[in-house]
């Protein structure tokens, strides 16, 4: 079964607003990663947060990790139309092996 569950499944916001997506998982992890997928194409790695980290930033992205609650969130600030995509969290249970969540479909309306 999938390790990660994400909510919401779909999110639609206005350009310029912030978008927050959440991911929960079940087992202990080495790290948690977020990927973006545009229109059913390949995935692009966005950011990785290790199990001993609580927060990480990369440009307009902010990721938090709460290992006690087995959850993570991805915040995209000042959203743009180009941010429209599906976003997946992936947990690394061991070296090289990733298990992906169900994903959040994000739509940015102009």
């Amino acid at each position, binding site marked *: 079964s*999938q390790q990660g569950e994400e909510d919401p499944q779909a999110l639609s916001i206005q350009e310029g607003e912030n978008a927050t997506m959440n991911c929960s998982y079940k087992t202990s992890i*080495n*790290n948690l*990663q977020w*990927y973006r997928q545009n229109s*059913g*194409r*390949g*995935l*692009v*790695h966005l950011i*990785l947060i*290790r199990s001993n980290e609580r927060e990480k930033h990369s440009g307009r992205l902010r990721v938090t990790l709460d290992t006690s609650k087995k959850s993570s969130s991805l915040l995209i600030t000042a959203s743009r139309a180009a941010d429209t995509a599906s976003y*997946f969290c992936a947990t*690394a249970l061991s*070296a*090289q*092996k*990733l*298990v*992906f*969540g*169900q*994903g959040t479909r994000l739509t940015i309306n102009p």
Partner: protein
Amino acid sequence: SAVISQKPSRDICQRGTSLTIQCQVDSQVTMMFWYRQQPGQSLTLIATANQGSEATYESGFVIDKFPISRPNLTFSTLTVSNMSPEDSSIYLCSVEGTSGGAYKQYFGPGTRLTVL
């Protein structure tokens, strides 16, 4: 980072036929991964392919249905055999990379397969 290409990018196939998907990487890598993404779903790992050894399949996937070749460190193929409409999916290959000592994966653009 690795640059990965896949062929074909999409195909429409008839039930009962087979399709071989190619994955080419611009650098040598030890491990390559094959995923399936059914319509509207997340990614599911099919198998891990190491050069010079048999692929390791995940639960629910078997070699007879998804034979994999890994002839060298930059190339792999996945064959979807005896296809049925349920095999309609996006098939993605990926390779490992590292970021600050932690593993991440680089993905190819995917092959969109429709089985009629």
